[in-house]
């Protein structure tokens, strides 16, 4: 299955600033997803990022706040913009690593906004 390198693993940021999270996959994958896990909560899908098309956002998430790039089949970034303490969460990327619903998850980025 695919291997994902997600960076940074953690960061502490000032409110009002932005952070870009990167996910690098060791193989070409069509579908990539970004999730948020708020403290003590489950994972919530932010958006689907397929190469060659605009990211598709879930209800409650907007491009201005969470812009996503997907320049090729092995790489994607998620930016958390104009951060507030409510954005403090773990952010994870995920890819479909095989057509039989095999998924690989990144190790996550633990973001704290102060």
């Amino acid at each position, binding site marked *: 299955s695919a291997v994902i390198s997600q960076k940074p693993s953690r960061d502490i940021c000032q409110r009002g600033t932005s952070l870009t999270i990167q996910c690098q996959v060791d193989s070409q994958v069509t579908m990539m997803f970004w999730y948020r896990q708020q403290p003590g*909560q489950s994972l919530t899908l932010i958006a689907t990022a397929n190469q060659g098309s605009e990211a598709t956002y879930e209800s409650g998430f907007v491009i201005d706040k969470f812009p996503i790039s997907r320049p090729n089949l092995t790489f994607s970034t998620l930016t958390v913009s104009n951060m507030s303490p409510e954005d403090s969460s773990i952010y994870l990327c995920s890819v479909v690593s095989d057509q039989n*619903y095999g*998924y690989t998850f990144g190790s996550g980025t633990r973001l704290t906004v102060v």
Partner: protein
Amino acid sequence: AQSVTQLDSHVSVSEGTPVLLRCNYSSSYSPSLFWYVQHPNKGLQLLLKYTSAATLVKGINGFEAEFKKSETSFHLTKPSAHMSDAAEYFCVVTKGGYKLSFGAGTTVTVRA
């Protein structure tokens, strides 16, 4: 919309006793279902998945789950809990294409 409900937010068991984590799903079509485990400060690990093949699914570390369409359930069981099973468990369902919907999670504690 496809979703899952984990019926217990917290389960506490004694080491060596059975573990049962309950999950009900709602779906307008035959879904794929998964159980993932997340140990403290660790990433997600797939325990098992159901993708329309055998309804009794065996996973890693002695876990298994049974897909029951009539009851819309996908409960996770293990005959004998180990201290290392203490973690957060998520029941997950596909919600259109390859998008996933996670349950709220069940925290498992194991007493010595």
